[in-house]
């Protein structure tokens, strides 16, 4: 049961002299610190951290945890984020000392089990993506994008004579914000391609913008509206004819596992989001991972190291890749997340992964069929693993916004969908139930949504009503940022 008294900050609970860790006595002959390190390097006092006992810390953070919604406790249909059930067995395995207590600079012969796992995961992801080579290094999808774009830049530098300078990256207007941000970070100019009335890439606009300076077209497929681009092959051909590369943002792979493969529909490079597709957990915002898969010709540019297997069946880390772009993150990557992805894939097998996508798509279409009567879905009656509804009509007729609906859903024990994304749809609500929700929970969600749309607007404007706090003043937070506790401000 939630403890409403527990809203103090850890700093306010602090009392001088309390502590939660007691270290052993120093068992080596002790010297005065200033004899080991000159005084000029030493602080006059330790940092002013809070002082608490272990029971204080446990009660404080356990109480805080109860103020969250989570996949373990609630239906969490947050579109684009694939909030599916996180298998507990995967966590247990990733925590085995043989994985968790491995130092990144141990000699290779001492980590053959781990290297085998990572090597096999590279192979699995290549197969699932229909591509040839994989790097497990990027720490999240956005870093996967950046890595692939840096590889594309290197690829074009090596082919400047034939292909000329390539300075642009084309991105549909419905894309995740990470796409243009990654393009800019990689030194490219981001150029937006319009969507057509059906929510798909506008081929005319693409053709108009596809010139000899385009390095990469980044596409999300299925796209952020939950639609598969039926003309993806033509798009790929157009891009390739101009000498460009096609990048697939793999955020929505949960819809197409074993159904179709990015490599087969023309992608040259892609990233996976194992924390979404392969059940990550999302961990309050991360860690994720962002492994990338690429076509054979691009493989030499992958970051180092890559796990390889030699003729004797030994695994090693290959750093000797002269065309590699280098490294985007220290050490190997978010290994703990990758171990869970490996276990997830091994648990499901080929048929099981396909069934994951089938049920993800079935659940989304079922929910769409239940809600479209009272919450219009502008881009059609069918979707892949998610769909985008709009509250535009409700807004115009009754002054109820997508945000109002989202907030009110919380009162009924559902996490809200993603709202106001994609930016191409007004008052958008992006709903992704995932395959691990039951028919009953989808029925309940649809019922609640309907009930809410019938409620009085005034009630909705002030929702949620059942949570400890409601409608925080975001303007105040942004105008006068208070980003840390200070004794004066918080008394």
């Amino acid at each position: 049961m939630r403890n409403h008294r527990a809203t103090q900050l850890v700093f306010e609970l602090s009392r001088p002299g309390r502590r939660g860790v007691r270290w052993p006595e120093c068992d080596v002959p002790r010297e005065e610190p200033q004899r080991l390190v000159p005084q000029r390097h030493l602080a006059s006092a330790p940092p002013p951290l809070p002082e608490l006992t272990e029971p204080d810390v446990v009660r404080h953070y356990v109480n805080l945890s109860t103020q969250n919604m989570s996949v373990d406790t609630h239906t969490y249909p947050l579109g684009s984020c694939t909030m599916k059930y996180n298998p507990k067995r995967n966590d247990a395995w990733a925590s085995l000392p043989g994985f968790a207590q491995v130092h990144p600079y141990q000699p290779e012969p001492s980590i053959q089990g781990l290297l085998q796992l990572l090597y096999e995961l590279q192979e699995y992801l290549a197969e699932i993506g229909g591509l040839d080579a994989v790097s497990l290094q990027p720490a999240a999808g956005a870093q996967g994008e950046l890595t692939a774009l840096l590889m594309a830049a290197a690829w074009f530098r090596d082919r400047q004579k034939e292909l000329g300078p390539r300075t642009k990256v084309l991105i549909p207007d419905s894309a995740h914000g990470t796409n243009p941000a990654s393009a800019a970070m990689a030194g490219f100019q981001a150029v937006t391609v319009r969507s057509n009335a059906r929510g798909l890439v506008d081929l005319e606009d693409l053709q108009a913008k596809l010139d000899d300076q385009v390095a990469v077209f980044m596409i999300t497929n299925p796209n952020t509206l939950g639609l598969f681009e039926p003309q993806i092959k033509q798009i790929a051909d157009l891009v390739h004819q101009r000498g460009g590369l096609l990048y697939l943002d793999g955020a929505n792979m949960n819809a197409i596992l074993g159904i179709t493969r990015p490599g087969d529909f023309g992608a040259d490079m892609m990233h996976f989001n194992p924390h979404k597709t392969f059940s990550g957990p999302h961990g309050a915002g991360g860690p994720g991972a962002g492994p990338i898969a690429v076509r054979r010709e691009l493989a030499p540019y992958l970051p180092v190291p890559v796990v390889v297997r030699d003729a004797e069946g030994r695994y090693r880390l290959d750093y000797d890749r002269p065309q590699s772009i280098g490294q985007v993150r220290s050490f190997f990557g978010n290994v703990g997340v990758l171990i869970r992805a490996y276990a997830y894939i091994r648990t499901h097998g080929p048929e099981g992964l396909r069934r994951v996508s089938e049920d993800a798509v079935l659940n989304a279409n079922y929910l769409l069929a239940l809600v479209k009567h009272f919450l219009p879905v502008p881009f059609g009656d069918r979707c892949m693993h998610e769909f985008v509804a709009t509250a535009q009509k409700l807004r115009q007729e009754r002054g109820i916004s997508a945000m109002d609906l989202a907030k009110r859903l919380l009162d009924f024990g559902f996490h809200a969908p993603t709202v106001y994304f994609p930016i191409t749809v007004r008052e958008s609500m992006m709903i992704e139930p995932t395959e691990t929700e039951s028919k009953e929970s989808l029925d309940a969600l649809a019922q609640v949504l309907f009930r809410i749309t019938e409620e009085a607007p005034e009630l909705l404007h002030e929702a949620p009503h059942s949570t400890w706090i409601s409608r925080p003043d975001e303007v105040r937070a942004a105008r006068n940022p208070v980003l840390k506790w200070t004794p004066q401000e918080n008394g």
Partner: protein
Amino acid sequence: MTYQQNTPEDRQAMLQTIGAASIEELFAQVPAPLRLNRPLNLPEPQGEMELAAHMAQLAGRNQAMDRWVCFLGAGSYDHFVPAVVDYIAGRGEFYTSYTPYQPEVSQGNLQTFFEYQTMITQLTGMDVSNASLYDGGSAAAEAVLMSFTATGRSHRVVVSRGVHPEYRRILHTYLENLETEVVELACPDGTTDPEEAAQALREPSACLLVQQPNFFGSLEEMEQLAQVAHEHGSLLVVVVDPISLGLLKRPGQYGADIVVAEGQSLGSPMSFGGPYLGVMACREEFLRRLPGRIAGQTVDRRGRRCWVLTLQTREQHIRREKATSNICTNQGLLAIRAAVYLSLLGPQGLWEQAELCLQKAHYAARRITEHDRFRVRFDRPFFKEFVVQDRQGRVAQVLDYAWQQGIAAGVPLGRWFPELEDCFLVAVTEKRTREQIDRLAQVLHQAP
């Protein structure tokens, strides 16, 4: 179908509601020629019991630091993690939630991030902190990118070779397609020479990037480096070891502008390099250039104190190609671990931990160098890590011999520094006992 709910009857009923004859029909958007008309070539599925055996077998083939004695460091450290950290971070409400887009049902995460941010500012002496980046290495690259916009000088940066070689490599990779010159300062004596830095900074540069303690474990003359950076209008960007800040001067005290760190030391396992925690803090004036999520305090409509994600206009989902970074998913759970870890330690705990590292590292250095085959390579003050030179130049044999005795004695440096082919880096945390250190020295002294 391990985690799915739909029974065949459910599927039938759902298809009926949808008005589709089959699940196959739902995939009509995917053109037939693009379909995969065979099963994926993956191993057949395994239930929990069989897969548990397989995973245990893979894990068992690794010689992990629960059985070997770890003197490996170089950016990843075997510090003690209290059980409470795993317990709290394992709470499903933290573990299986996501970015706090709905503050009303994310106060647990938001308040914890706010506390984390506060503790990072307390630790570093800086004004503001974000809610995490990926790891120390990419955080260093982000800090350098930040210095470009802060100074308007994106054409040149100066980097000490005392910065972790992988971090420098990341920086080169991030900057490869931009027109930025990266000037590296040699560290022949184990630290950065402030005069050489001044020389390099004469040409306008966005920042000076250094590490404290540096990759070799040595302490840099931070006051002097800060002074030369600022004299030349450059920012001072510092990579720090969070544990060292129990004892060492805080970056805010010596004038750092942006501070980054590998936060793995703050309560996360080594886990072969990840997931880790990118710590980043800076001076107030650079707040709007800070990448990543930031939690801020406000009040709700009833006047209750609460927390939200704030200053979001910096971020990719709003500013797109003009964002301060492309980061979206971060390392939230690791930030929670760090907050719990630092609350448990408190000022006294961190001070004592840092001192234990200091004492034990110096004891280890004394013991190892009792044999004149070995010397500490650099005559510089150090914290918990130091470079050992094998005068007989057989580093690989020495480390291999120690490994056979159950001791991970150090990280060989020749891979990054050809001139240090005969050297290895030894790290000593509070976890190492006198007995283990004595054994390390003994084994090294016996090595062939």
